[in-house]
């Protein structure tokens, strides 16, 4: 294989920028993905996540910056020269080849003597052995998805790229494939880079999630950290639900900042706020908010509101509560009381949360 680069190690992007005409798709990002990790690029459509993936694959070349695996600079090399394989969004199976030949395609191009055996093993791994003789059009979406995975995995790439691989599957199948993908990743130990706009999917599967917006990485970290302590307004809103309000910081109270959100005083742990003066976007996750009929004793933050809507979800009951500031908050009560609280729309309730659960980010996007 002339030009093929045998690279091993962590994947790194250094100051990578990609422009299409005037449009900046990816804006000077740096990324370090440790070898063998499951990494997710999460963001809304048009945020640059797929362009980033395509630059790693070699399907696009960066306008500036470098793409490296270990110490090998892959910038400028062609897709077929890289130890990287992609599971495409629409699977992109070769329609004229059987499943067996689809999977054997990569090994054959690399002149592997045992291409047939490798393909058989890969099909075994994704439990598609009995379909080896079929054509892609004769398979369901979920089955095609497995074949696309096998076709990439069979090459044992240094980095496996997944471009919204579960996007076309129905919910139940998607859940199953999430577990399955995670199992396979653990089994083969390859670096997986998973592009998705589904925050739940990214959080369930990945060790590390990079949240992208407008061509930049807003925040990078373990899913629980991103959820618990978002550092930008975008991350707070994109990742899960958040009850938020914009307020002015008025002063401090011990370890806490005190902000005035439309007449309601709220406290945020200093370490959990990105801003310490001026305006702050205050937020708290719905499951961290407790609902009660009477004013609770000294937890720290409590606000009186009016119940607008009650939905029984089985494991929990979800409440929408109109706040004095004019916004509507959402909160959950786990259904473990012997005597349920039994709230109705129109009831006055007290919402309480621990200041340690609140977070503060810049009120305006930078």
């Amino acid at each position, binding site marked *: *294989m002339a030009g*093929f680069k045998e690279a091993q190690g962590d994947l790194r992007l250094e100051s990578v920028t990609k422009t299409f005409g005037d449009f900046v798709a990816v804006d000077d990002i740096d990324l370090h993905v440790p070898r063998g990790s499951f990494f997710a690029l999460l963001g809304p459509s048009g945020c640059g996540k797929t362009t980033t993936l395509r630059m790693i*694959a*070699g*399907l696009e070349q960066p306008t500036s910056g470098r793409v490296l695996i270990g110490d090998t600079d892959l910038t400028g090399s*062609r*897709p*077929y020269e890289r130890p*990287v*394989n*992609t599971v*495409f*969004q*629409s699977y*992109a*199976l*070769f*329609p*004229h*080849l059987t499943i067996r030949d689809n999977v054997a*395609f*990569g090994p054959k*191009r*690399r002149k592997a003597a045992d291409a047939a055996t490798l393909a058989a093993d890969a099909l075994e791994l994704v*439990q*598609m052995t*009995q379909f080896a003789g079929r054509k892609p059009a004769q398979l*369901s979406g*979920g*089955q095609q998805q*497995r074949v696309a995975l096998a*076709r*990439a995995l069979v*090459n044992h790439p240094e980095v496996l790229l997944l471009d919204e691989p579960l996007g076309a599957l129905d919910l139940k*199948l998607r859940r*199953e494939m999430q*577990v*399955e993908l995670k199992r396979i990743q653990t089994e083969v130990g390859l670096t997986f880079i998973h592009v998705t706009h589904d925050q739940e999917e990214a959080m369930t599967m990945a060790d590390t999630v990079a949240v992208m917006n407008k061509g930049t990485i807003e925040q990078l970290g373990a899913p629980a950290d991103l959820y618990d302590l978002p550092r930008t307004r975008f991350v707070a809103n994109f990742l899960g639900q958040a009850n938020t309000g914009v307020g002015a910081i008025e002063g401090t109270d011990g370890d806490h900042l005190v902000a005035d959100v439309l007449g309601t005083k709220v406290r945020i742990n200093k370490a959990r706020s990105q801003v310490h003066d001026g305006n702050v976007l205050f937020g708290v996750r719905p499951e961290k908010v407790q609902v009660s009929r009477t004013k609770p004793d000294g937890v720290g933050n409590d606000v009186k509101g009016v119940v607008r809507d009650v939905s029984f979800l089985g494991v929990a009951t979800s409440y929408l509560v109109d706040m004095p500031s004019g916004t509507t908050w959402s909160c959950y009560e786990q259904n473990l009381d012997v005597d349920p609280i039994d709230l109705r729309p129109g009831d006055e309730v007290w919402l309480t949360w621990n200041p340690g659960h609140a977070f503060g980010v810049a009120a305006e996007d930078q």
Partner: protein
Amino acid sequence: MTALAHAAVDPGGVDPAPPAPEAAKRSWTAYLLLLPGVLWLGVFFLLPLVQLAAVSLQSRYPGFAGYYYRDLNFANYASALTDYAPHFARSFLYAGLATLLAFALAYPLAYAMAFKAGKWRNLMMICVIAPFFTSFILRTFAWSQILADEGWVVGGLELLHLLPGGQIINTPVAVVAGLTYNFLPFMVLPIYASLERADPRVIEAGGDLYANGFTTFRTVTLPMSMPGVLAGTLLTFIPAAGDFVNMELLGPQQGKMVGNVINDQFLAIPGGYPVAAALSFTLMAAILVMVFLYVRRFGTEELV
């Protein structure tokens, strides 16, 4: 895992049969929709075909030129095959050459239109289709001007000393050139359609799986466009093999194609009807056999 394994095995739900009255109604609609086409084919294709078959077996009244009686005279076929074998051979040779040339010209053009043309795509498409706005005969006449002894093609080739004979018009070369030109759009359009329909991600997948540009073309793009190539070659070869206009206007006086013989037998020679009909049937049968073998060899599940 059991749920997963089940999902993998399940070939997908089978649609339950629609209720019977609904099905009956739908099939009647289908027959009604088919009726005009079936009538048209019956009256203007099937009946003439039967009549032609009858004519091809007629015998001539001895002594009366131009008069025939109903018969089972298979000698017409024998004469068609023995007397005109060279004409058949020429027809298939010229049509075959024109098909190869048209393919060689059309594939890069269709490829460029599908993948490289960008905003020029529509203009290129118009250029491919534009010749249909003038008549076939006129366009072929135009070629007799282009390839004339005083024309720029001959002049240019003579200047470069590439034309020792000094003539293109009235040679088989002119006939093949005319056939290639006239049927080129029938080659371009199906190939373009199949390339355009190909998912660009599938072609990218070839590159992603270690195939360089040429290998990707050979193992992915070309096989995916085979239905278009198949349709294009059939749409070019079949009419080219039966064509007589290009030979008439561009070709030599001697060494005609089978289409010219059929035309002459029908129109010019008194008493040529049965032989002309027999020639037509022989040509049709020969083309059918060739197409059948060709599709068996290169065909995919779907045409176009």
